[in-house]
């Protein structure tokens, strides 16, 4: 792998940047792998990377039906934080946040991780009680968090209307300074490049159409373009399509797929240098380095695979944002899109073995999977390599929907993506 550095940039400039190596190989698939990862988004590519890097399993293929990082990895609002309420999820997301902090160096790829802080606003007394409970829980778990009053919020976000005479006045907020945003595509590309250099085969434009099974154990995958590829283990990281892939293997998941929308404005001058989220008015907003205002909406309540959302949802999100930022009322929107999120009843992921032996699923991240990309990949890789679930992944087994040990994160995950 050609390392990226200021020196290499200079060297290549002498040859007019014509000799850069391809970022990843485009190999023909082998007939057999130790592990096949279905789904070439951020989580799948991270899983493949950590398998090869930390667990010595490099005979790995990532099979992607479209192009790498072309699903929800390319469609989210790029927010990274770890201020979750319950121990199980707080530990998982904090593990991930710690990996984010060294990710650009680790991958030798600038993922533009910017720890600009995340504000979660409170607009009612109950909001403030929930916020203080969550911040205290976070601090007990070693996660940074503070409770701010409206004046402190106003200092951080001068553009926001924090006056008391609003329909939904800002009464306070939780503040996680280590949270922030990252460049979503770069995360997929960085993992893909590093995994490819370690020998992982990235197979694009190849859809998995079924599983090869023997005696209740998976032995390979059937594909649309390369026939059957055999494998010891298969890990599925297919987000919104999880139920469809699970149905191919003959079981159901506690997941429903919903469209989730976001939109960006035309680029404007720097006005917002942090991330603002509000559960109560239901909106979240940040400004990208390019200057676009990035706004996230809620999910559509109905199931859908169409990668587009409905207009009432857009209207709702925009009215929430204008409640907080009336001065954005004449900012023009540039693009709007939808992704299909795999929502779980308890707003927590499923990282689990399945009724089919050697078939593992990592799904159910719902509206907030992007922030977990590195951590999810690492614990899933550990589980695949060792054949038993990583301690951080254990509470997220599918069995929790049978024995009742749900991890209810609707408070921390409800709007905040």
């Amino acid at each position: 792998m050609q390392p990226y550095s200021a020196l290499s940039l200079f060297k290549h400039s002498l040859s007019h940047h014509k000799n850069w190596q391809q970022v990843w190989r485009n190999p023909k698939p082998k007939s057999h792998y130790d592990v096949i990862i279905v789904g070439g988004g951020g989580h799948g590519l991270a899983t493949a990377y950590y398998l090869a890097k930390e667990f010595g399993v490099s005979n790995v293929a990532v099979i992607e039906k479209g192009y790498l990082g072309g699903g929800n990895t390319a469609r989210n609002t790029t927010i990274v934080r770890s201020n979750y309420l319950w121990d199980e999820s707080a530990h998982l997301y904090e593990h991930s946040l710690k990996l984010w902090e060294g990710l650009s160096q680790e991958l030798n790829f600038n993922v533009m991780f910017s720890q600009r802080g995340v504000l979660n606003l409170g607009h009612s007394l109950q909001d403030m009680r929930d916020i203080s409970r969550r911040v205290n829980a976070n601090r007990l778990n070693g996660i940074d968090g503070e409770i701010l009053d409206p004046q402190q919020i106003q200092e951080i976000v001068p553009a926001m209307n924090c006056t008391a005479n609003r329909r939904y006045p800002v009464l306070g907020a939780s503040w996680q300074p280590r949270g922030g945003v990252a460049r979503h595509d770069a995360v997929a590309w960085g993992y893909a490049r590093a995994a490819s250099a370690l020998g992982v085969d990235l197979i694009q434009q190849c859809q998995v159409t079924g599983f090869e099974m023997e005696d209740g154990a998976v032995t390979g995958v059937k594909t649309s373009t390369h026939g059957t590829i055999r494998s010891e283990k298969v890990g599925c990281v297919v987000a919104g399509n999880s139920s469809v892939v699970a149905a191919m293997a003959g079981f159901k998941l506690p997941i429903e797929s919903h469209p989730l929308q976001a939109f960006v404005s035309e680029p404007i001058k720097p006005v917002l240098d942090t991330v603002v989220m509000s559960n109560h008015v239901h909106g979240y907003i940040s400004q990208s380095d390019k200057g676009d205002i990035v706004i996230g909406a809620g999910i559509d309540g109905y199931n859908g695979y169409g990668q587009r959302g409905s207009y009432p949802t857009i209207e709702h999100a925009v009215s929430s944002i204008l409640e907080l930022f009336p001065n954005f009322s004449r900012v023009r929107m540039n693009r709007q899109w939808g992704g299909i999120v795999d929502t779980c009843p308890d707003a927590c992921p499923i990282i689990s073995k399945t009724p089919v032996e050697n078939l593992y699923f990592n799904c159910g991240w719902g509206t907030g999977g992007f922030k977990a990309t590195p951590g999810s990949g690492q614990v899933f890789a550990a589980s695949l390599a060792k054949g038993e679930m990583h301690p951080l992944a254990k509470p997220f087994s599918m069995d929790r929907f049978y024995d009742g040990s749900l991890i209810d994160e609707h408070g921390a995950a409800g709007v905040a993506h």
Partner: protein
Amino acid sequence: MFLIHCPNCNEQRSEDEFHPAGEGHIKRPDEPNATSDKEWGEYLFFRNNPRGIYRELWQHTVGCRKYFYIKRNTETYEIYNTYLLNDAIENNDSGGPI
């Protein structure tokens, strides 16, 4: 944006008058006390979530407030038909694939 025909009001109305309420035709176990944890978990949480034909429960929230079923396609967003709760599935297979 859906235009939904409420089978109770017999009116074609826009999506924001309605509220989806999850997968339709899910039967509560007849004897909850005799149900295993696995069966109960499956009843409560596990869903078909298909890519394609889907029967979904909806409520006409700002209209008659009654529940009804929509048979629709989750990929193309086409609505095949809508029908009342006490209508059997077999009576509502017209207008699109089953």
